[in-house]
């Protein structure tokens, strides 16, 4: 049977994270460091045991989801940009741009004028409706930024 390479990779990453957590806890007070240090050590030990067990007793790794990786990356990129700049650009404008980008990323069908108009209308209703509910109904001060 194949070894659980993804699981072992994750465990190795968490060992590094645990070591970093221990390293950066050196300046904490005794009271502030006891808990994170204990957790970091537990994480290192458990991850080490996981790697050892995976090497000694190989088992099937977790199933990997299929699909388009560029669309996944594009979605994350759009959301990161959206989350980073919405307060400077303006919530409404950034949301319209992000919504349109995500529509393009998520659509696999051939674009037709009818589809474009329908999706744009749905986008306007979703963004406009939710914006109004949060801004005026729930009194959330959505940032206006440089554009709105």
């Amino acid at each position: 049977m194949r070894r659980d390479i993804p699981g072992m990779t994750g465990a190795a990453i968490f060992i590094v994270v645990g070591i970093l957590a221990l390293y950066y806890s050196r300046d904490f007070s005794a009271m502030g460091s006891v808990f994170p240090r204990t957790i970091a050590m537990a994480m290192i030990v458990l991850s080490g045991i996981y790697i050892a067990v995976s090497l000694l007793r190989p088992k099937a790794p977790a199933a990997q989801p299929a699909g388009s990786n560029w669309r996944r990356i594009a979605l994350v990129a759009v959301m990161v940009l959206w989350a980073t700049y919405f307060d400077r650009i303006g919530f409404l404008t950034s949301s319209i741009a992000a919504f349109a980008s995500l529509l393009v990323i998520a659509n696999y069908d051939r674009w037709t004028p009818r589809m474009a108009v329908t999706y744009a209308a749905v986008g306007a209703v979703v963004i406009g409706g939710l914006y109004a509910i949060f801004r005026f109904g729930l009194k959330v001060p959505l940032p206006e930024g440089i554009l709105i």
Partner: protein
Amino acid sequence: LPGIEFLIDALTPLNILLAIVGVVAGTVIGALPGLTATMAVAVLVPFTFGMNPASALIMLGAIYTGAIYGGAYAAILLNTPGTPSAIATTFDGYPMAKRGDGDLAITLACVASVTGGLVGAAFLLLLAPPLAQFALKFGPVEYFWLAVFGLTLIAALSEGSTLRGLIGGCVGLLLGTVGVAEVGGDIRYTGDIKALLGGIDVVAALIGLYCVPVLIDLVATPDPHLKLTHQVAGFRLKEALGISWKSKFNLARSSVIGTVVGILPGAGGSIASLVSYAEARRVSRRQENFGKGEPDGILATESSNNATVGGGFIPTLVLGIPGTPPDAVILGALLVQGIRTGPQLFGEQSQIVYTFIYGLFLATLLMLPIGLVIGRYAFKSIVAIPKAVLVPSVAFLTIIGSYAIHNNPHEVQQMVVLGAFAWIAGRLGFTASPIVLGLILGVIAESGFVQGYLIGNAKGNALAEFFTRPISMGIIAFIVLGLLYPLLMARFRPPKGSTSE
């Protein structure tokens, strides 16, 4: 009945309206394959921030219970579970739809969901107050051990290995230490980023951890363009009630299983429905019909997954430890409202708790007409919503929702980053639920640990403070049992091939 004087508070026009809106919204989201009940609660939770706590809880409970039920539509009519908790519903639901009994299967699922939901809510009403009374005896040390117990349980019950669950729990606990420490005031792991001084916001983190990975995977594959081949022509309510009455013991057993599984931290509807299904088949005189369209299969799975709603609220409200993943989101929402759950809630703020519990009964009852009508008239339209519209709409809700918590752009960034991290961790085999539980229990565990340590030191023996108190010893025994559970199950499981599938 406990708190019966608050029944009238649950029945205000506003609360009834919120229950209806919640059930409809939850059912619609739950009916969409790929979207989970946790996600339904997470994306809709910001709508409740402006409400009074009892009304907010009623709406969230209604969303939760509606979403769990909504998963049955797609399971029965499309052979695709709308939510993970409806996986076992496909086993008999789809064969029933194929032979032309889809409408009966939907009504059976609805009746079972309402029954399970009512049983779970009844347990919540009757068990929570005495448990809260008992929990008043808990000190910091007991809370520390309870948090550890919650983590070991989720590790034992989580998909995949116990070790991966425990590691995920540690990741969550470490994330919970970011920011200014509650005890001592140290600034920890902020990397000199001012935005992290306040720590990681639990609700923003939960929206990210539960919603963003779903979006990432939704966008990766083409729209399946699901088409209904089996129409829902009528309700067949009388027939469904007759079958349900004949299977009352199955319904009762499955509802109790669902409630108990819901009480266990971290375990939710998917585990409950699979356990109940297996149990219903084991004791049935029609074992050979299971998997071929046996109504008892649907009754078992749907009653148990909805019973987890009430069951899950028991540890959530009594101890502040979420029973199921959606409870974790609801717990976070209550923290935003300034409500700290725990045994004191049943004394000082009993109006909130009892109004909510009676509101949960109301929402569950409303599910019967709403669920039947949506199944009959709206499911075809719901399932036709294209992914291309769904993905940006849900993404918009996550962004606006995480901003609305504290009007803080940094929390939106935390949400997205943690969501991407959860997706990567998921691909490496580390699921989100243990991380979430660690994040929530981290605060309880640390303050309990440090306070217990200080008290023990003041008494001259810190170790004794942790290991000699009777209630602590009881919880430690459960922790050991929780850790040994997977080993015991593996030891006593019959060898492969000895049972017929």
